[in-house]
């Protein structure tokens, strides 16, 4: 049994410096949600600018900063940290550990991530404004002649810090699952969510160093070195960037798939169907996702399109297995239509649209047509917003009682889901049509031709509906925390070890552990106890 080094002293400083994995995860989630709000406001400004042709709410230069900081915020400071935060909180609980290994390094990872975010956003307060060359910072656009001022440099340094922090967190989570499991928990008794974190962290530790290399080279280039300023320089940068830039899409997806899969099993009151196939598909998926990066570079003509097209198309196999397993879990289950299951189902529907359109753009001829158009914007928002964020909320509604000891309001949760589902489709579906009609991404204005005006108007209305849905969620948080409905240890009849302990769990997580008979030990007990 692990012991506490010293009695915790109450106070803000000790709370902020706490190395308890649960507090670190809560802080990381809160910071990520603040950056989510900031990046979301930037998106609303962009949608307002595009609501109708000829509007000029912000200047073109400001618009460039808006889309850059929106995309950067969402990738580097929201979805990746949120994915890792879920793991930091729930992996030790699911594997029956008292804490993560190297708890001080976990805190360091969190601080570097926060420092990176503040550094990136501080660019808005310097001359020439924040970075404006997109979240990809392609060279030479991100070079000194085209991106003057400290904003770009602050962005680069911020990305380096955030990535360093995320590598630390990913490495520690991986070590936790591999080395800190409770006695009796073999590799094939690890819960689905924790397996999704293994696949995620493998990508973090092997792909994220490429981002640090790309950013370091870019920083040096802007400060006098001549590394990228050659014939092959811009392509070399793209190779490095996308080697991180594609796997990160799966880093911001797998943990939420894991959360959605847990929600599907719990609210179908059934053992997860096809556990072994799901685990294998996660690892295969993660490996393939490392091999597809240059499909973002089809249009450069400098990569072997057939290899990257083939590996990108192969992704449909593990993705299909995961879908099949989740739907198979629901079939024959005693389905309880609670908010977590609604969000998980929303994820299944919406991510299918994102995934299928991903297969379109995995084909070079189709990609040439829609490259750098609003079609691509629609595609990745269906995967990241309409997909991952729905699955994230499935996890939030399912695990909130474990974290706080209080239930979220079910009625408000369903309103949140309905508004977000409608808003996401209103916002992002018209973008497919805009792209197909030839509207490029990253433009602050467009001509009044074809259907572009009304398509953009609908999309802007949709973004307002999304904002409204998130306000409902915020209200739900406030109401549920102020007038608490006690949740008890296990309000849902959970399957995995986190539901064994108190809500919220103590510092050392468990006073005792049940026998670990499978990847769903608590479900095994429930079945045993039934006559």
């Amino acid at each position, binding site marked *: *049994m*692990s*012991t*506490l*080094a*010293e009695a*915790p002293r109450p106070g803000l400083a*000790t*709370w*902020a*410096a*706490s*190395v308890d994995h649960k507090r670190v995860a809560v802080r990381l989630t809160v910071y990520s949600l603040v950056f989510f709000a900031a990046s979301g406001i930037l998106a609303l400004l962009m949608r307002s600018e595009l609501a109708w042709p000829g509007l000029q709410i912000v200047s073109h230069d400001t618009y460039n900063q808006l889309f850059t900081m929106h995309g950067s915020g969402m990738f580097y400071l929201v979805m990746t940290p949120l994915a890792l935060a879920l793991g930091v909180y729930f992996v030790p609980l699911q594997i029956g550990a*008292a*804490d993560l*290994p190297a*708890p*001080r390094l976990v*805190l*360091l990872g*969190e*601080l*570097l991530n926060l*420092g*990176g975010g503040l*550094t990136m956003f501080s660019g808005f307060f310097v001359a020439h404004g924040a970075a404006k060359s997109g979240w990809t910072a392609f060279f030479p656009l991100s070079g000194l002649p085209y991106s003057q001022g*400290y904003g770009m440099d*602050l962005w680069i*340094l911020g990305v380096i*810090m955030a990535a360093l922090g995320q590598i630390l967190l990913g490495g520690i989570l*991986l070590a936790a699952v*591999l*080395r*800190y499991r409770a006695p009796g928990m*073999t*590799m094939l008794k690890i819960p689905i969510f924790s397996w999704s974190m293994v696949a995620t962290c*493998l990508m973090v*530790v*092997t*792909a994220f*160093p490429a981002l640090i290399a790309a950013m370091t080279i870019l*920083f040096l280039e802007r400060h006098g070195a001549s590394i990228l300023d050659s014939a092959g320089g811009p392509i*070399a940068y793209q*190779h*490095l960037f996308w*080697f991180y830039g594609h796997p990160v899409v799966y880093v911001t997806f797998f943990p939420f798939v894991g959360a959605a899969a847990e929600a599907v099993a719990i609210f179908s009151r059934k053992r997860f169907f096809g556990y072994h196939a799901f685990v294998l598909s996660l*690892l*295969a998926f*993660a*490996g*393939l996702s*490392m*091999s597809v990066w*240059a499909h973002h570079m089809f249009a450069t003509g*400098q*990569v*072997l399109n*057939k*290899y990257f097209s083939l*590996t990108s198309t192969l992704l449909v196999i593990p993705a299909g297995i995961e879908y099949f397993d989740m739907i198979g879990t629901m079939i024959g289950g005693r389905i309880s239509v609670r908010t977590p299951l609604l969000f998980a189902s929303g994820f299944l529907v919406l991510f299918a649209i994102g995934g299928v359109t991903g297969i379109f753009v995995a084909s070079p001829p189709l990609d040439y047509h829609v490259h750098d158009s609003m079609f691509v914007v629609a595609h990745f928002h269906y995967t990241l917003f309409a997909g991952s964020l729905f699955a994230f909320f499935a996890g939030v509604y399912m695990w909130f009682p474990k974290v706080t000891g209080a239930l979220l309001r079910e009625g408000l949760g369903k309103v949140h889901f309905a508004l977000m589902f409608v808003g996401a489709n209103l916002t992002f579906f018209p973008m497919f049509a805009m792209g197909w009609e030839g509207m490029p991404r990253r433009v602050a204005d467009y001509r009044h031709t074809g259907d572009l005006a009304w398509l953009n108007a609908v999309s802007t209305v949709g973004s307002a509906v999304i904002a409204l849905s998130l306000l409902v969620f915020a209200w739900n948080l406030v109401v549920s925390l102020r007038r608490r409905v006690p949740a008890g240890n296990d309000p849902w009849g959970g399957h995995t070890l986190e539901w064994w302990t108190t809500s919220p769990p103590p510092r050392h997580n468990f006073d005792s552990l049940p026998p670990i008979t499978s990847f769903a030990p608590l479900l095994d007990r429930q079945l045993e106890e039934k006559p």
Partner: protein
Amino acid sequence: MRTSALPVLAWAAWITLLAAVLGVWASWDWQAWAQFLGAAGLAWLAGIAVLLRPARDRDRTLPDYSLSTVALGVGVVFALVGALVGWWLVLIGAGLALGGLGGILRERA
């Protein structure tokens, strides 16, 4: 053999295979396959580390908070921003980071 290492090693083998196919198919695009092989190398190292590390001590003392780690984190952030702002901030950051490291060593003692 530690079974914990198996998924990492299997994954390393999988991406090595994918990198090798790219290397054979697009030998001219050396950066692409070289960086992919580099990542595969990292995966192999992670797998071997799991394989070789002795079993952990299950009884351990859990720290509750670490102000020294906060000092280290703030120091690293200051030192990195100092690369842009000036040496003075690099030095403040390095000082904080060193102080934090010293504090962590004391906490662990």
